[in-house]
């Protein structure tokens, strides 16, 4: 997959926002939105997140209904000053994380960077085995953006601009 052609300030948002609000749709047509750390795999033009096998509902939803969305609307911790709000609508591929490819390593590194206190867990041999099911036994959602909308940084009521459409 080629890299995405996106404005630099939108790329900044995808790189640096701590959590995106990811929405999947369940069998009943109910959208469910949860915050999730994401990793922007710029070389592959995809966005990666992962769920624990103990809480696989997002993954099950995305297998059944691969159209998902990611809203980047909370800049807390990002260091960005009045960033644009960005909505990514895309198609998800779902797979268990069994061999830790570079994009999953990128996601783990992103979590460690944004949540530095988590290293007390992941670095402790006892804790990481107790919480294996939460920290390492995970299911990945690899999201290929089909459409990206962006609002102005001050989001003062302006309409969004479509900055990417594929397909």
């Amino acid at each position, binding site marked *: 997959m080629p890299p995405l052609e996106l404005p630099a300030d939108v790329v900044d948002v995808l790189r640096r926002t701590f959590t995106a609000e990811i929405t*999947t749709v369940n069998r009943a047509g109910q959208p469910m939105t949860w915050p999730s750390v994401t990793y922007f795999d710029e070389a592959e033009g995809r966005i990666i997140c992962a769920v624990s096998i103990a809480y696989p509902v997002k993954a099950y939803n995305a297998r059944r209904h691969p159209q998902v969305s990611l809203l980047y609307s909370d800049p807390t911790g990002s260091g960005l000053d009045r960033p644009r709000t960005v909505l990514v609508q895309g198609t998800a591929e779902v797979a268990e994380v069994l061999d830790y490819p570079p994009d999953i390593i990128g996601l783990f590194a992103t979590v460690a960077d944004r949540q530095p206190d988590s290293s007390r867990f*992941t670095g402790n041999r006892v804790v990481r085995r107790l919480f294996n099911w939460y920290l390492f036994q995970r299911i990945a959602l690899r999201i290929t953006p089909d459409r990206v909308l962006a609002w102005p940084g001050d989001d003062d009521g302006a309409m969004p601009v479509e900055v990417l459409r594929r397909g």
Partner: protein
Amino acid sequence: MADLRLLDRIGDYRSGVLSWVQPDGYPASRRCTVEVVADPGGAPRLALAGTDLSVEPGGRACVLFHRHDERLEGLHQMVVKGTLADDGPGGVALIVEGIVTANGRGDTDAMPHASAPLHMLAFYRAGRSAARAYLTKRGSPWPPIPFDEIGRRVAEHNARRG
């Protein structure tokens, strides 16, 4: 499903994220301000205000509330599920049908943390049990996890990124 009294916590959040499903099947989301409106004769509703909330009444939707600090700690989250409805001229509301917390408890929107050991223990027990159910359904065991190799590669990744 969590206790509807958690609606009282909505005032702790500056805004929520409304999500709905577009006719083309893609979900969409928009941050909006939220006011809880009690209805003694029926379900409570969330009055939603924001720009371009071009949503159709009658559709299923949810509002996520979440927050964290600058070190991605102090996590709080909950999702209010329901149906969209007209709410006066130009207004939109979510008729509340339930709340989900995903933290192992129905009485708080706080995520488990080492500083709250009883909550962490409840989260651990529920999560381990759910993970075992997943693995049983999966059939074959999960492959061994190369913790040290993962740690080394994460460090290399961070070194490359500076």
